[in-house]
């Protein structure tokens, strides 16, 4: 087993870190959230740097040797609190393009994403935080050779910037059934598509998507008819592992930042760091982070292998990371006192993102249940 980065991965890590250190401090980040033009410009720069291409493997036109490469970028994104939608456009929707399309259509779609010219959003999973794709908000009614889509989803991540939506609509069966969900690629500007933009509490972009009598044909279909759920399952596993690694980058930052703060903050005539109860708290933050890091790394290395192993490791990582992230975020804010909850410092923003990561793509109880079910299946085999 080798847990160290190879030369290319180390270079990727350094490139991303340098880029973000130069271009993405907390003040710049706040400005980005008020300036769509600046956000789009930063995305194009990331594309030029090859960061979006690093989320695709070489066989589909990307620059990555394996799916683990993108996890290195996500880790650095976590460190720098990046809200750019690499996760949604490239890792999750990119996986759907890779698995659901083929030939020229796939090359065109992935090419546009890698070039930074096309943003994507996945409209699936009802009002869940992107899990359980068997629950849908959209229906697809057969109409001649095509379908007519209808429905409304209140929170579509990256829906604010998407040029194209991947809409999970029910073509057969009823809500909650794994069969009968089909994926359609629909241009944001298509007749009958409308959205209202906002942000989630962690400052990521989102939109309400309303789909009214939108006509689609075979050419819009992504993957097999009625067979969308297994595709989304894979894509969300990639998403899960991506945010696990993002969380590691965030925790890696919070621990030394908290230690430094306690060394300099004097109360009762001594630095806070002198209080043993706080030393132990920080040691616990470190212990939890190391446990989470191990499983997040293994989950990243399991993405391209056996399906059952990928699922097992993704769920194990999510459960561990969610717990560690909540603890580390909570304690980092606690030890920073009032400064920890001020928007002026990045500490509180990390705390928010770590909590959202805990909920995103299935919370701890969801993933522990899934891990348990997979273990049961394996034992029965």
């Amino acid at each position, binding site marked *: 087993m080798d847990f160290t980065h190879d030369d290319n991965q180390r270079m990727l890590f350094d490139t991303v870190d340098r880029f973000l250190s130069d271009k993405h401090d907390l003040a710049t980040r706040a400005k980005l959230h008020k300036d769509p033009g600046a956000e789009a410009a930063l995305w194009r720069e990331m594309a030029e740097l090859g960061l979006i291409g690093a989320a695709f493997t070489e066989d589909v036109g990307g620059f990555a040797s394996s799916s683990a490469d993108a996890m290195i970028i996500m880790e650095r994104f976590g460190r720098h609190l990046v809200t750019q939608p690499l996760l949604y456009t490239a890792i999750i929707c990119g996986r759907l393009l890779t698995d659901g399309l083929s030939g020229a259509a796939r090359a065109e779609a992935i090419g546009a994403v890698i070039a930074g010219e096309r943003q994507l959003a996945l409209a699936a*999973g*009802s*009002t*869940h*935080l*992107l899990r*359980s794709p068997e*629950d849908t908000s959209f229906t697809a009614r057969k109409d001649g050779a095509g379908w007519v889509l209808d429905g409304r989803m*209140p*929170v579509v991540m990256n829906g604010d910037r998407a040029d194209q939506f991947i809409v999970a609509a029910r073509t057969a069966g009823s*809500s*909650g059934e794994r069969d009968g969900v089909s994926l359609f690629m629909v241009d944001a500007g298509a007749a009958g598509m409308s959205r*209202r*933009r*906002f*942000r*989630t*509490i*962690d*400052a990521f972009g*989102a939109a*309400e998507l309303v789909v009214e009598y939108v006509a689609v044909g075979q050419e819009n279909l992504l993957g097999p008819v009625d067979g969308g759920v297994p595709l989304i399952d894979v894509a969300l596993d990639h998403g899960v592992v991506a945010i696990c690694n993002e969380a590691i980058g965030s925790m890696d930052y919070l621990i030394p930042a908290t230690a430094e703060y306690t060394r300099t903050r*004097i*109360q*009762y005539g001594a630095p806070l760091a002198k*209080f043993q*109860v*706080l030393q132990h708290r920080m040691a616990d933050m470190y212990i939890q982070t190391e446990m989470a890091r191990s499983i997040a790394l293994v989950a990243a290395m399991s993405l391209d292998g056996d399906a059952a192993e990928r699922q097992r490791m993704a769920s194990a990582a999510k459960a561990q990371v969610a717990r560690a992230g909540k603890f580390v975020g*909570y304690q980092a*804010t*606690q030890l920073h*006192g*009032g400064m*920890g*909850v*001020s*928007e*002026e410092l990045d500490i*509180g923003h990390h*705390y*928010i993102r770590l*909590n*959202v990561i805990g*909920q995103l793509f299935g*919370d701890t*109880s969801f993933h*522990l*249940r899934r891990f348990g079910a997979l273990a049961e299946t394996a034992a029965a085999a």
Partner: protein
Amino acid sequence: MDLLIDDKVTALRAELRAFFAENLPAEYARKTLAGEKLTKDEHIHWHSLLRPKGWHVPLWPKEHGGPGWGPMERLIWEEESGLAGAPRLNHVSQDLLGPVLIEFGTPEQKAELLPRILSSEDWWCQGFSEPQAGSDLANLQMRAVRDGDDYVVTGTKLWTSYAHLCNKIFCLVRTSAEGPKQAGISFLLIDMEQPGVTVSPIYTLGGMHAVNEVQVEDVRVPVTNLVGREGGAWDITKFLLGNERLMGAWIGINMALARQVRARLEQVGPDGRKRSANAVLAQRVAEAETDLLALRYTTYRVLADELSGKAPGPEVSVIKVRGGEIMQSLSELLMEMAEAEGMVHPLTLPHEGPPIVPLEVEHMAQQFFDRRKLTIYGGSAEIQRNIIARRLLNV
């Protein structure tokens, strides 16, 4: 053993419930329960509805315009007003400064200032914390130098709640650098509507603006604005915090949150099943409910001691720690059960058209992250544990 549920208590509960049902505007209750802010005018309007009964100043004796309640009645008020979703904002004036003036103020101070609190003319904020004096309050640096009949005051107060809505501030100021730190601190009333006083907002998690920085530069304050004697602020502060002692349980608000949590658990989720079908979630909710019951009866026990004449002691720290933690877990459950809809940032939602998410969930994430402060301010969870260890366990 006696659970303190006598006819008097039952009658008061019924009276309060009837009053809220008849007088509390539904929109105020909805906003309060959903974590939305009311305007200052709405708060003043609500205070005006309570004024005939004196219930907006639940700690004040009858002679000064309050209801003349004892500790038991006040706790019932806490529970019932929280459950009803009654807004609460000017409590620094009503519950903190008012009783201080009644106990320590000069006849002139009482005559001038108490009626202005009753009428909502004055909104006071509390100037305690400073950049270098958080948990270690005795380290405060704001200077008040005697010059003739005035003090000249200079310094910075931090984390001052609602200073941007207030016209007056009471400050702990350093009047002497000699002797023990605590002995050089005085309690001074300062008019904020004058040159030299600058209020700057501090934005906290979720874009909230509740706290501020208040800078005071060479402001002349008449010596008659001193409360108690010069250097006597420490005892006044202890008295003031003592009046807040059971509030740390947030008992009424926690009960209202628990009611919302239970209601959402019994609703059908996006998967078409009742949320209570999720055994893990159902167990977490039940755990939070039993935590709250334990907190409530711990509060009652402290109260029973108080009614039997025993002064409340450091066991209040137990209530403060748990009150904050329980509110954090209840808020977290509410946010989590709302799933994607519970994650929206309320300040970024478009105003035109129908609401994107149900109104009652718009502020859930903001509320959860804002409540992060509960175990930090007013003596952090660590300070409370120090108090328990030192004063109760003698270690």
